[in-house]
């Protein structure tokens, strides 16, 4: 009795599965894009640009990642894409070393790999789409902070995670600029927020109570800026503790208009996603080769390449005067 049922069930599932198989065959060009955290508005605006580029180029775009910044899940997603046989994998690495073992495996299978936003190990990818040099970002942040504080006083940094490679680079250049140009300013603390607004808010609150002379909070991850602003607003410290940071205009518009946040510094994230897809497809089609000095990306025009870095351009400062002109 049991074995009869078993056989019937087996047959049923075979028939069912057979019916589905026909739809699976696909030979469209596939670009798979891995964000650090897929719900993060920063990466969603990268995706908006990437979608636009994919549409223009007629390729299929997969966009999947961990819901939190989790290196293990990033690896599992990349390994899945390898067995799905995608053509290009574009990654924003949560952890350089961790992701690179999976990326090397992808390269060994003939998949083209490109990094964007946060670089992987150089031997595990062909190019890195560099949204801005760490020096450009670090200096712009520090200069803006110094300008707002009158080049004097204490400030603190809220970062995504203390391990992420791009955050550490920015922090390094912030410190270099601080030491060489602003001797009367003092960095009192650097706190991680795990790329979460709530955590950034509680860290900002803790920083303000631990450092009564704090003049400015600098958040160098996108959820950190509104998080810090909310903390300042709730503590009634608007104007006394200034907020600046790397973030998205839309997330910060409210706080900029309320006068809590003074400046938001960033590059155009949609352009970053757009350029990444163009570069990935050009690479896979053999149009972009090692040693190239420039690349043309659709409606955005030409971008400069130095060695294996494709540069997006200079950072941009959003403030009360211009933030409403941007919508991402």
């Amino acid at each position: 009795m049991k074995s009869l049922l078993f056989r019937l069930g087996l047959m049923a599932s075979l028939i069912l599965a057979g019916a589905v198989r026909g739809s699976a065959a696909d030979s469209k060009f596939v670009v798979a894009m891995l964000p650090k955290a897929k719900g993060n508005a920063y990466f969603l605006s990268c995706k908006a640009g990437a979608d636009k580029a994919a549409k223009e180029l007629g390729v299929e775009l997969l966009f999947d990642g961990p819901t939190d910044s989790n290196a293990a899940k990033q690896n599992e997603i990349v390994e899945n894409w390898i067995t799905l046989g995608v053509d290009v994998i574009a990654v924003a690495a949560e952890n350089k070393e961790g992701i690179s073992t999976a990326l090397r495996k992808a390269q060994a299978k003939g998949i083209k790999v490109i990094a964007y936003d946060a670089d992987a190990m150089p031997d595990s990818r062909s190019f890195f789409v560099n949204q801005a040099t760490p020096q450009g970002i670090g200096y712009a942040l520090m200069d803006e902070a110094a300008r707002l504080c009158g080049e004097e006083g204490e400030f603190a940094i809220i970062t995504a995670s203390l391990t992420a490679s791009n955050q550490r680079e920015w922090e390094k250049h912030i410190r270099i600029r601080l030491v060489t140009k602003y001797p009367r300013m003092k960095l009192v603390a650097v706190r991680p927020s795990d790329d979460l607004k709530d955590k950034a808010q509680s860290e900002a609150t803790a920083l303000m109570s631990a450092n009564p002379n704090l003049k400015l909070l600098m958040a160098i991850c996108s959820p950190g800026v509104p998080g810090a602003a909310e903390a300042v607003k709730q503590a009634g410290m608007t104007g006394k503790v200034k907020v600046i940071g790397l973030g998205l205009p839309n997330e910060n518009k409210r706080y900029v208009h309320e006068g809590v946040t003074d400046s938001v510094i960033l590059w155009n994230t949609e352009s970053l996603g757009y350029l990444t897809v163009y570069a990935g497809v050009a690479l896979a089609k053999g149009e972009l080769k090692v040693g190239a000095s420039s690349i043309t990306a659709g409606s955005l025009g030409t971008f400069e390449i130095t060695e294996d870095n494709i540069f997006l351009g200079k950072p941009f400062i959003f403030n009360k005067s211009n933030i409403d002109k941007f919508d991402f």
Partner: protein
Amino acid sequence: MSSPSPSRDWKALLLRHETLLLFVLIAEWLFFYFAGTSSRRGVDVGFGTLDRQFDILRHSCEIGLLALALTPVILTAGIDLSVGSLLGLCAILFGKLWHDGGLSIPVAAACAVGFGALGGGLNAALITALRLPPLIVTLGTYSLFRGLAEAITHGAVTYTNFPARFLFLGQDRWLGLPAQAWLFLVVAAAVWLLVHRTTFGRSFRAIGFSPEGARYAGLPVERRLALVYVLAGVIAAIAAIIYTARLGQAKADAGTGYELFAITAVVLGGTSIFGGTGSVHGTLLGVAAIAVLKNGLACLPSVTRLNAAEEISGVLTGALLLLALTASVFPKMLSEFRARRQTGRPRPPSPQPV
């Protein structure tokens, strides 16, 4: 020690649960084989490739080990929520001993296993000596171990650059299978023998049924309980080493949330959360059913286009677990209902084959 009188009944039920689960697993696998495999430019891709099958093995080794560790614990009607955090702590200690302590990989690994035993020993001491409930004790150590891992690394240090010979364990194949799968099989065989072929295993079930009864029967209940928690710590440490080798990094967030996947696998495998009944092979089937579901979904074109394989697999894993629980309770409820109608009063409760 043998079980109470309806022994044959619930043994048959247990067998049925596992047979059912095996059937679900095969059906699942076949479905994904046909629906999740396709051809791109003349090459087979997706679920049906050998690479994918090996990836499933590689991705499920750590959670599988934790599920093996939890089976004896849950058989004694206990629980260990700290295994995922202990995995993280052992990974960090292993990385630190090798990177900063200058120890060789095998020595560092042996030390990590020792720390795993110590962590499990802390749980065991609190549970047996102070008679505190395992749920609360391991909820405490769940935070404690993860906190220690973060404190040791200041939340910032990630140990990487492990030698290729060590990474082999997590990333390459040995004798046809992913290297870590062999280690997993050895641990699985050892736990199976312990639970099903020794008096220890029988004592775990006896304790799970009734700790007082087991004590009156002359079983050293405290020592047996201590054994299962220390064993869980040791296995968590082995999982930590495999995890580190697979990712090539040891970071304080290693294994976050794995304990819940492992408990799900154990319960799906037919082990009662109230203790007393269950099996190691059921746990292995539970691990496989969840791993195939999770990895198979990621290969379905319709799911990859939604970019939400992880989320959908979470929903379906939950549904599968609830379905399995309902299916296993249903026949018993039906027979009780019939008995009540015949005699006009309920039968005395029998052990729950949940």
